[in-house]
């Protein structure tokens, strides 16, 4: 276990190096940050002076070397727009995204497990067909279409729910985390984005759980369990469900990437002030330090989650040995 984790950490460092390098290459193609800082009528010579001052005229590798030197000390550069360290900006924006993802995940788990299992156990029932039908339609509607329709219906026409933003937030954990969970206004602002974000992931999970569960139900040991006369409920929920979890967790880990892509879309439509929105804004403003820092952050997140998924995978399925040697 220890060897496994050490190896993963070393790998993670290599991954971070590569990500930072690619991020650095990309940042030269998203536009000129100086342009976003000065007014249009400012002379080219003034812009040049600012470029020089910000070190943007240094050769690529000098810039990259400086970046790495600072990054080791946890300094990812200053966000030009926010005028704060990029890492700090990301940490300030992370709670919004994490709360959105968390609330959606809860909704997805609460609904997909019972619905997916039900559809697998009673595949021929009308309700199952209905759920499957709905889920396939759900998967087919683009998330931004859902989001705009929700705003159109609930905000603009019915005036029930707010159309954008997080609403009133409260600082907790000594001001480190701004939460929208503790105010009624914050919760109201959460509803539409969560529905929009879940609208595409929920059907996917229902389908996945159903497919995997049905596969498990066909296996010999379940048939044997039935033959042995174990109670149906026990077979379904203890034997079959446990074995369904394995692939669901793997795919779930993979889905995190898609989820982050969808948070970008959802956050944009609802102007939810999280990392996805910040990222798109950073691209539009050529806020390059923030861009690279965001990529690094997402990279860390992915490597971290994948490591955890692999560990859980190993715990559930002892056949996959997580050892240092192979």
């Amino acid at each position, binding site marked *: 276990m220890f060897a496994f984790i050490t190896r993963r950490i070393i790998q993670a460092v290599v991954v971070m190096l590569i990500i930072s390098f690619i991020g650095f290459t990309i940042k030269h193609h*998203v536009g000129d940050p100086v342009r976003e*800082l000065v007014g249009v*009528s400012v002379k080219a010579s*003034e812009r040049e002076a600012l470029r020089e001052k910000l070190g943007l005229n240094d050769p690529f590798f000098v810039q990259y070397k400086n970046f790495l030197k600072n990054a080791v000390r946890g300094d990812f550069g200053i966000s030009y727009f926010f005028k704060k360290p990029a890492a700090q900006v990301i940490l300030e924006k992370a709670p919004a995204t994490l709360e959105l993802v968390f609330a959606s995940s809860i909704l997805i788990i609460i609904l997909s497990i019972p619905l997916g299992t039900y559809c697998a156990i009673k595949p021929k029932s009308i309700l199952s067909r209905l759920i499957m039908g709905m889920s396939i339609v759900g998967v087919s509607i683009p998330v931004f279409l859902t989001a705009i329709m929700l705003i159109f219906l609930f905000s*603009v026409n019915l005036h029930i729910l707010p159309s954008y933003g997080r609403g009133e937030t409260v600082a907790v954990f000594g001001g480190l985390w701004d939460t929208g969970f503790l105010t009624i206004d914050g919760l109201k602002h959460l509803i539409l984005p969560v529905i929009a974000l879940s609208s595409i992931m929920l059907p996917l999970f229902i389908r996945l759980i159903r497919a995997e569960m049905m596969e498990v139900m066909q296996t010999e040991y379940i048939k044997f369990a039935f033959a042995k006369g174990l109670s149906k409920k026990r077979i379904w929920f203890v034997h079959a469900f446990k074995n369904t979890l394995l692939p669901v967790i793997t795919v779930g880990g993979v889905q995190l990437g898609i989820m982050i892509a969808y948070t970008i879309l959802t956050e944009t439509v*609802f102007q939810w002030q999280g990392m996805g929105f910040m990222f798109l804004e950073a691209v539009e*403003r050529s806020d390059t330090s923030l861009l690279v820092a965001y990529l690094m952050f997402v990279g860390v997140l992915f490597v971290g989650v994948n490591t955890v998924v692999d560990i859980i995978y190993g715990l559930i399925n002892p056949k996959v040995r997580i050892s240092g040697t192979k």
Partner: protein
Amino acid sequence: MKKIFCLICTAVILISAPVHAKTVNLGVAADPIALDIHVQLSGEMLAYSHLSFDPLVRWTKDMKFEPRLAEKWERLDELTMRFYLRKNVKFHSGNIFTAKDVVWTVERLKKSQDFKGLFEIFETAVAVDEYTVDIKTKKPYGLFLNMMTYLFPMDSDFYTGTDENGKPKDAIDKVAATFANTHESGTGPFYVTYREQGVKTVFKRFADYWDKDCPGNIDELIMNPIKKDATRVASLLSGDVDFIYPVAPQDYAMVQNRKGVKLVTMGGSRIITFQLNQNRRPEFKNTDVRRAIVYAVNNEGIVEKIMKGEAVAAGQQGPKGFGGYVDELKPRYDLKKAKELMKKAGYENGFECTMIAPNNRYVNDEKIAEAVAAMLSKINIKVNLKTMPKAQYWNSFDAQEADIQMIGWHPDTEDSANYSEYLVMTPSKETGYGQYNSGNYSNKKVDELVLACQTETDPDVRNAMLKEIETILYNEAAFVPLHWQNLSWAGKDNLDIEPIVNIMNFPYFGELVVK
């Protein structure tokens, strides 16, 4: 059942209605990049300057000068203007406003990267006594008072010294959280109580505001940047905010027809044009080809259909009301004439060329570019169009990556000559003129006239020169004029928007009345 629902609604409204203070929630496209008003010359920054600061003079709705912190002024000689300052004016910090603050601010403006271009012409500002200041230019200058609308005196005592990090408080820095970027002390109607950049800024009314005749009655203004047009308009319709600007043309009709909200629009001075790059395409060196293109572009159709009538089709750079405006220079769409000109130039079969335009800079920029590309195909010019976000666009524009490039321009000086200085003068790295002339149009006569305008102080002579410039540009088809964008604001019915908005798009929120 319906009745009960209504009752509940009323109850909710009653509970949620503010009992004491009048708060206005504002939805804008972007917030200022910092609290230091000298850090960027941009629309957002100037709009904010009018909230927390006051200029010496400001523009009225009909483009006259209105005394603000300067009560009156007089010209001492060809170079010097004397300003008599208002007494009993307090800064937000409690300090008293005097002549030394004006002198300090002028000096700071000359150091600001963004403003030094505009204030280079000013030699010195000298305090004659506590409430009199003499401002002197290097050369005779026709736009003296225009520049004074950019002079928002800052609290010199407040910004002097060093902050807790040992950095000077008056440092102008675009990328650091300096003292000036995070604190403000002006004389304006509102002071900032809370700010989370890109999320919201809260302004409270300044109790000691000098202008006791100010009709404004809002106590709190919350500025919320909402980037997307559709989201912004949705937030007004859903009641999340009370006032938004700008409004996209396609939403005008709907906002107008909706109960409880209203729309105000006004002609603007931002001209949208296409430049035809003569260095990249030899065809564009031919005046007939350029004129053919201007004749082929139905800019009135674009105004009617894409801008929903809320823009003015242009034939020249400056709009009506500007010094150089010539009545006769009308838009000239005539497809037959365009085809004839192409034939005359020997390009009856046309040619293929490239075009770039931004997709998030000007109102409906992408759609306009697309429509123009379609129009040019009717005179057999096949256009390969690429649109991109503005962050990437300016690099491409400067590199002159395409044969036809879109550029919009609003003169900081609210004066005709400014268009020519940036858009049509012969590009030169040394002088900085023609900085946005990606068409590489060059005409000695135009260059001479624009330079002469700078030092001409007689308005009539100056206007005649400006008119001559416009006429030359028109006849030579130096660029493809499209239209002047209208400005637009929308708010709830109980907000009296009309009196506070103006052509510069700096709503004077201090004077906003809420019924």
